[in-house]
């Protein structure tokens, strides 16, 4: 019993450390200024003289704010497209038996098997031809293809977890199929759909490679930082990295209840 408990607690500690230590180190370097970055060993406790000087230095870099705006634009569009395309596809997978449903499910996963690096050149050429090159809209399309498999499969499992009888009961008691979806299925799936939306947002926000390749002047924050920070001093790079993870962490933190309820449904 005690051994099991020890293993249990050790597991928790390791998992927490796995996530928290890197974030802590980045945060430390971001607020500690030049000296902390170069010191070794790192202080275990946060320095007393926390300075936001480095952060300000980073935020003063020309173009950071504009590219942040492009990032938000691409992420919001990616989120919207993932929901609009992924949720209906998920519903179809969950509710209808159609020829090739299993193959379709597999193909969805296979879209993630293509390395973006191989697609980069043809994509760039195609985007230039279509006039999508160097626009946040174009980037959001690319990010949607990355987020979509996840959106489809998760919403499929969401809908699968909602008993079909609930929908049938709604039909019997006077609903058309559309109305039954809106009044019964959607309210029950909403927490999960919100989680899908957040994931799509985070995927787009964090994506670097495609965003770097597909833009020149209208770079998203990650792509912009990649090109700018390589010439900045180390502590500014850390400040940039820190500010980059804050929105994702904050987003997931705010949505944690919704995420758990989604997983609750998915594992039931």
């Amino acid at each position, binding site marked *: 019993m005690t051994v099991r408990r020890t293993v249990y607690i050790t597991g928790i500690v390791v998992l927490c450390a796995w996530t928290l230590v890197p974030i802590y180190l980045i945060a430390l370097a971001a607020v500690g200024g030049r000296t902390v970055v170069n010191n070794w060993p790192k202080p275990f406790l946060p320095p007393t003289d926390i300075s936001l000087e480095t952060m300000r230095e980073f935020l003063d870099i020309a173009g950071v704010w504009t590219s942040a705006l492009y990032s938000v634009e691409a992420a919001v569009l990616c989120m919207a497209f993932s929901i609009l395309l992924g949720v209906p596809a998920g519903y179809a997978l969950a509710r209808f038996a159609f020829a090739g449903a299993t193959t379709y499910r597999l193909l969805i996963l296979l879209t993630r098997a293509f390395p973006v690096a191989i697609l980069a050149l043809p994509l760039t050429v195609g985007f230039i031809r279509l006039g999508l090159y160097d626009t946040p809209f174009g980037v959001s399309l690319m990010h949607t293809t990355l987020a979509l498999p996840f959106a489809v499969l998760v919403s499929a499992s969401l809908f699968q977890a909602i008993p079909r009888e609930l929908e*049938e009961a709604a039909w*019997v008691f006077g609903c058309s199929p559309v109305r039954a979806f809106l009044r019964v299925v959607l309210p029950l799936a909403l927490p999960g759909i919100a989680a899908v939306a957040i994931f799509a947002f985070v995927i787009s926000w964090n994506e670097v490679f495609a965003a770097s390749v597909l833009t020149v002047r209208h770079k998203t924050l990650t792509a912009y930082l990649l090109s700018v920070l390589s010439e900045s001093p180390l502590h500014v790079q850390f400040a940039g990295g820190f500010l980059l993870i804050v929105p994702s962490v904050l987003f997931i933190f705010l949505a944690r209840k919704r995420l758990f309820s989604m997983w609750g449904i998915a594992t039931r």
Partner: protein
Amino acid sequence: MADIVIDNITKSFGSFVALERVDLEVADGEFLALLGPSGCGKTTLLRIIAGLETQSSGHVTIGGRDVSALPPRKRGLAMVFQNYAVFPHMTVRQNVGFGLHMAGADAARIERQVARAAALLHIEPNLDRYPAQLSGGQRQRVAVARALAIEPSVLLMDEPLSNLDALLRLEMRAELKSVLLEAGTTTIYVTHDQTEAMALADRIAILHAGRIQQIGPPAEVYTFPATIFVGGFVGSPPMNFLTLPVEDGCVRLGTLTLTPPAESGNQVVLGVRPEDLEPTVAAGGFPFTVRVTEPLGPHIMLTGETLGQQMRVVVPPETPVPVGATIQLRPRNDRIVWMDPASGATVGRGEVAKVGTEAASD
């Protein structure tokens, strides 16, 4: 109020035929139980009536209106699902009022009807709770109240009690019967539990392998099953079947000589209920060797053999029989059924059988 006519319904899934040319008529205000083992097609038939499944061929008529091609919402019926299907994101009040709300009833009418249905099923204290806060039995009541609130002309129930524990099931069964008697709704009730069907229904339709075997009042189905299957499925313990040779138009069983219907071939199956076998003293019966005795309180159940074929006999508790003993039995001759061993169909009832000479003197 409406009658239901099911006309020549066939349903096949690929090459599997779930229902084959099913005909069924349910009178206005009647309570019909669809009884059968799992996989016999009873739920499929109910779902076809509800419009949740599409028949391969045939017609469903409700109250003189052909509803075969209509979606569920236009058929004017209500349904109680096996797993209740109570909407978890709505309060009990919203659940019960859902059908009326969807039909566009005004608030006053919804309130009135919900209050009535809630009173009928004793769920008033729970009206503002969510289904997750209710027990299984309470959820079942909500599902029934939701169905009754719209005052449907037809009520369909799909094994509504099967998810409740035994005691609650018994309680809900009696309550359901009184509620539905009061509402006077035409009801089709699907179940695999023959006791439930016997207890609730005006008539029982027994389905087996996609075909209706027999339709009739519970007592008739019980006493005079139309096939060997019905006799074995209805009643607990099931009917006894003895396969016997026919010689010169007579069947000899111990010292008894019975006369099966004239059209019987070389062999005939004698069907008799365990409680319709009486132990007799000395002659005038057939031997039965007891292997197991089960004292069940109101009676004792004996399991044993006659002519190498298994039989069950129910005897009064005051006549204990030792295991291994051989006793003489005789059937109540007005309660026996003759069946064809090949087709399983009943060819004659007790009245046809005449008890032979030795027995007649008894």
